[in-house]
């Protein structure tokens, strides 16, 4: 990996972290109600976003993300201010028009399908976009991202069964971001296995486990998995062990918890390797924080949804897209 990419990943990770910290602060400043997000998953999610074939339609990648995927969106080029808009539930929120929780994206032009607060359903829906891509051929794949808690639901088994039907294998990358918790319940108290991706083994689905706190290892693992899925048109299951640095959500306070911080580790490594100075690193953080503060002021001036629009889009009235 060349240094410019390493520094780009660092800047994106910082941008995602600062964004999540800003969102948490907004729950305390009256600029939003509920926060849920992905601080601690940046080291995996930034490489994922960078490796996506971004576009619209089956020739490009479909993303069935979860609500901890902010860093993936930013790495794909999303504007941080749009996440502030969803946090404040203003009408300009491009993902849901003020209708959904923060970090619940939907972007048709990037194949980012609606993120839901039900943590497992994307595993069952992703097989459908992958099915269309199997038939379409080409290099477009489906990426579905959930967590260890959601993988306990039957929808995870659905993704394994349906993506490996003999002769009907699907081009799908099944990601399990294992943060070792379901809200407050530790995974090790509920699961007899720690390597969730190995559940793919009896289906003949290739699988791997990666340190999701290490962006370089994650980049390599995702690139390898994607290359396999794109070329072979078969499923791959990848587990990334990640951290959950501010707990489950604002419902558990949103305070910083003592877990491994992949971003700080990575930054220290880049400095030790002489690729980044401490001053340069600090400047990246400062610049992102300043930009977000300006963004927040902009968003504070934007209107909330007009209540007369409440019925809009219950049914779609136009031509099929």
């Amino acid at each position, binding site marked *: 990996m060349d240094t410019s990419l390493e520094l780009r990943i660092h800047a994106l990770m910082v941008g995602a972290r600062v964004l999540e910290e800003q969102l948490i602060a907004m729950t305390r400043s009256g600029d939003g109600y509920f926060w849920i997000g992905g601080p601690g998953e940046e080291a995996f999610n930034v490489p994922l976003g960078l490796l996506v074939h971004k576009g619209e339609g089956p020739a490009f990648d479909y993303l069935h993300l979860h609500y901890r995927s902010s860093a993936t969106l930013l790495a794909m080029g999303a504007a941080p201010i749009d996440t502030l808009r969803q946090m404040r539930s203003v009408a300009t929120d491009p993902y849901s*028009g003020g209708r959904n929780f923060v970090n619940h994206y*939907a972007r048709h032009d990037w194949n980012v399908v609606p993120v839901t607060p039900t943590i497992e*359903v994307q595993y069952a*829906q*992703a097989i*459908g*976009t992958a099915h269309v891509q199997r038939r379409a051929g080409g290099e477009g794949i*489906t990426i579905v991202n959930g967590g260890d808690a959601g993988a306990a639901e039957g929808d995870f088994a659905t993704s394994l069964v349906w993506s490996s039907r003999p002769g009907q294998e699907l081009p799908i990358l099944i990601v399990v971001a294992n943060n070792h918790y379901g809200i407050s319940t530790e995974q090790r108290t509920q699961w007899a296995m720690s390597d969730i991706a190995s559940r793919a083994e009896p289906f003949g689905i290739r699988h791997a486990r990666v340190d999701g706190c290490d962006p370089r290892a994650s980049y390599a693992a995702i690139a390898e998995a994607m290359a396999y899925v794109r070329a072979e048109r078969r499923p791959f299951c990848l587990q990334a062990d990640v951290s959950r640095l501010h707990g489950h959500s604002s419902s558990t306070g949103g305070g910083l918890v003592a877990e491994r911080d992949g971003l700080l580790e990575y930054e220290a490594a880049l400095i030790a390797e002489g690729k980044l100075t401490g001053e340069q690193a600090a400047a990246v953080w400062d610049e992102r924080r300043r930009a977000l503060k300006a963004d927040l002021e902009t968003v504070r001036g934007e209107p909330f949804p007009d209540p007369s629009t409440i019925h809009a889009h219950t049914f779609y009235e136009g031509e099929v897209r």
Partner: protein
Amino acid sequence: MATMAQAIRLALHYGEENLGVTDVFGEDVGPPLGGVFTCTQGLRTAWNSPLDERGIVGMATGIALAGGRPVAEIQFCDYMFNAIDLLKLAGNASWGSNGAYHLPMVVMTPVGSGIHGSMYHSHSVESVLTHIPGWKVVMPSTPLDAYGLMLAAIEDPNPVFFLPPKALLRTKGEEPIPGEPEDARELHNRIDAPLGDRSQWKPDWPEVGRHLVPIGKAKRMREGRNATVLTYGRLAPVCLEADKQLRAEGFSFDLFDLRSLVPLDWDAIVASVSRTHRLLVVNEDTEVTNFGEHLIRGVIDRAFGELEAAPVLCAGADVPGIGMAWSLEAASVPQLPNVIAAMRALAVAPAREAGGRGFLELPTRLARYR
């Protein structure tokens, strides 16, 4: 004449060839069986899925998200309950994304009683499914309407539940499907899969034509004066027979097959109640939180002053299942004598007097229509 199952098959064939249907799928939907009710025999895009209703609904959702046009089948509606949140998500995809996505998908699932289906093959689900906003809900009672409603459901850019009544799937109608062979035997020979080895069999499809039943338009089955009767599905022909018998007693009913439960044809309903001033709703579902209660409330909202007697719901008994013994099924789901009794009771109830103290209390429970 085609049976309803044949009509659905012809509609799906038309959808594959003319309306862009990409996938007809579900458990046992593809060859060799072609559906437990034969609705999907011989279709070009039909395929078998795992026995996984959440996977079926998720697959349909994903296909629609990626620009396909799926028709998914849940083999019996009774099996749909474990997929409710996936159905909810399909219903809120457009609203929740502020219009960024919409899902042109059809979920077909046979509903209702009447086939000795016992506790888990006899449910009615319209009260549950109409409670999932973002979905349209249609239910045919004749083969031609099944054909036309399926075409409309496929063309609709929104998710649509298509709910054929199990007990009517093998019944024939009185109106032909455009292009259907006149001889039922010929149709059978051309499109029904043979018994035994089907590996070499291919259907010989007739050139069926475009016939859409607009979603949201009720069908007035009979014109009458004594009361408005709203029904749908399996009980539509039962209400027709009840009306026929009661005409011999001098009564007549304004009888509607709603066909579409979401959206509802309120214009037709209100216009009728404004003529007859009495309302009866007949369906099979259990009576508590029954879709008929919504119909009655909607009429009260729109035409309270027109009613001269309390509106009546003739529905299923509030019990957890349909009993296997016929005596039990008949005691829990309205049958012809119950419907006749309900219609007659409403017709002869004295009118509320102007300035009177309130509505007459009419029996609303099935057990009282004996």
